[in-house]
């Protein structure tokens, strides 16, 4: 075992350790934070790409709706195409929303994903408006299910209810497939158009479910119960 002299030990400058450790920590932290921001930025880019594609789908669905009045009677376009376009679009943004929610939950450094969420809510509001305007004759076999929830609620009971409703609607969508157009929208997105649209239904609390723009549910028991109210 090596023996040491006291002088060699005393000569060490202990203060430098504290400063060096601090500098090292700051460097690691700065690198870590930048990498974190870059990582979250990558996710945002991915979401933005999806968003652009969704926007194209929505525009397509909107254009189809415009054509409806002209072409429906002439037989150039049938209802199926119109409904399919809207259903596909709804399904697409539904799955993108799930991904976005996961990214947003784990996003810690930037607010950009929160803004993307609002953009998607606007997209879904436009979809809702679009399906409202689809001629009744085309909606004979399809139900429009709009799920309104508070995204930022701190109320634990509401959080739990949101989670269960989300599961019930997922089950419902899985069971009935294209027979419903499911549109989940966060009501606390601060969108004037959405607020105006919701005000028509006199909803006193959230979460709420609107089926076919007529029936408003503030309580739901199961997917089976909901099926009874579908077309």
């Amino acid at each position, binding site marked *: 075992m*090596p023996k040491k002299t006291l002088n060699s030990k005393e000569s060490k400058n*202990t203060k430098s350790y504290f400063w060096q*450790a601090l500098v090292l920590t700051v460097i690691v932290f700065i690198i870590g934070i930048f990498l974190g921001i870059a990582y979250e930025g990558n996710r945002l880019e991915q979401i933005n790409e999806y968003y652009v594609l969704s926007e194209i789908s929505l525009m397509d669905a909107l254009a189809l709706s415009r054509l409806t009045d002209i072409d429906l009677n002439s037989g150039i376009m049938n209802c199926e195409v119109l409904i399919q376009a809207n259903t596909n679009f709804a399904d697409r943004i539904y799955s993108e929303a799930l991904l976005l929610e996961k*990214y947003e939950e784990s996003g810690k450094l930037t607010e950009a994903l929160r803004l993307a969420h609002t953009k998607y809510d606007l997209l879904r509001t436009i979809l809702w408006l679009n399906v409202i305007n689809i001629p009744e004759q085309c909606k004979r076999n399809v139900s429009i299910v709009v799920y309104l929830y508070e995204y930022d609620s701190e109320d634990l009971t509401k959080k739990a209810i949101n989670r269960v409703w989300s599961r019930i609607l997922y089950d419902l969508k899985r069971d009935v497939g294209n027979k419903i157009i499911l549109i989940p929208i966060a009501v606390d997105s601060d969108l004037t158009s959405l607020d105006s649209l919701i005000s028509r239904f006199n909803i006193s609390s959230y979460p709420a479910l609107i089926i076919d723009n007529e029936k408003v549910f503030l309580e739901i028991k199961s997917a089976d119960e909901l099926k009874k109210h579908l077309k």
Partner: protein
Amino acid sequence: MIELLTIVYLFYAFIGFYFLFLYGLVYIRNKNEIFSYPKTIKNYSLSIVVPCYNEEKSIGGTIESLLDLNYKNLKKIIIVDDCSTDNSFNIIKEYAKKYPRVMLLKTPKNTGKAAGAKNYGAKFVNTELIGFVDADSYPEKDSVKNMMGFFQNKNVAAVTASILVKEKEKFIERLQAVEYRIIAFTRKILGFIGAIYVTPGPLAIYRKNLFEKLKGFDEENLTEDIELTWHLLSKNYRVEMNLASQVYTVAPNNFKAWYKQRIRWNVGGIQTILKYKKIFAKRGILGSFVLPFFVFSWVLGILGAGILIYRGARRLLVHYLATKYSIAAQTAVLTLREINLAPNILIFFGTAFILMSLFYTLLALSYLKDKEFKKMGLFSVLMYSFVYVLAYPFILITSMYKYLKKKRSW
């Protein structure tokens, strides 16, 4: 705007990384000197005081290990019986009869604290150095001899050793065995920057003149060994540790005893922090590092426990309600799509911190391994790293409560 909780977590990560880097840097620069110690040139005269209260099971073994020490100038082994109610007194008496170096003392009345018996015994010491050994501790043969060289530096006031766990049969003992090894290694690391903050009861040696000058141990303090060390640091004396000097001690072998011991340590810690609060952020290692380190450990520990309880309770409640409603709605209680595996910056920092801590733990253990250590197994190390340490914030909260309620007892 970044969430407040994210900022708090990042702050925790920053502090954690800072200490890991600090320990890492000190280790890298001194790794060849971890086990080294100055050669003993002068044979300082030494007396060892052993406070004893109801230690009939261990006192004999402690005396024998002291008699077995190979330090030539050990003048007296003073065993202070603090009015034990078991057979301790008679056992000590037999040793005192047999060995002239062993002196038996009995306090006039039970002092109720180790500090009382230690101070009482110190009155009978007239050697240059005074050592203290707990009545359930067993110093290795050459432990004391190898500590003496440090006293050649006139600024060194006290020297301590590696405290290791003697019995490792029960799981709680094995966890403490891991813990004590990490503490010993860390204490040595801190020794390189002059920041040893405690000279623990199982084995510590002080300069007798300084011990007297500082009026010995504070009998009001539940951790008199921490208090005396801080007293020495506040006077700018240096405290050293020899990692190669090892002393085995009996650690609590059940949860209740362990919990009681930890509460005592922490209540004593609070007493000491408050006693030296005026030195906070002042020059010298005590004010600039040791005291802030203790205070921040307390604040961060309690805040961490608060956050953990708050977040955990909220999650549990949401899970409970969601499960209840899900059952009523006959839908899945848990779905795969709800499991979020998307990583984030906190997970990256957390993972890096855990890996570095684990590396530090294994490094510390590699320095103090023995045959028995192999029996401990990876399970004990992992349990220590991920479960045992989580109990600490709750110990801090209870200690704070007990301190405020003035429930201070051995």
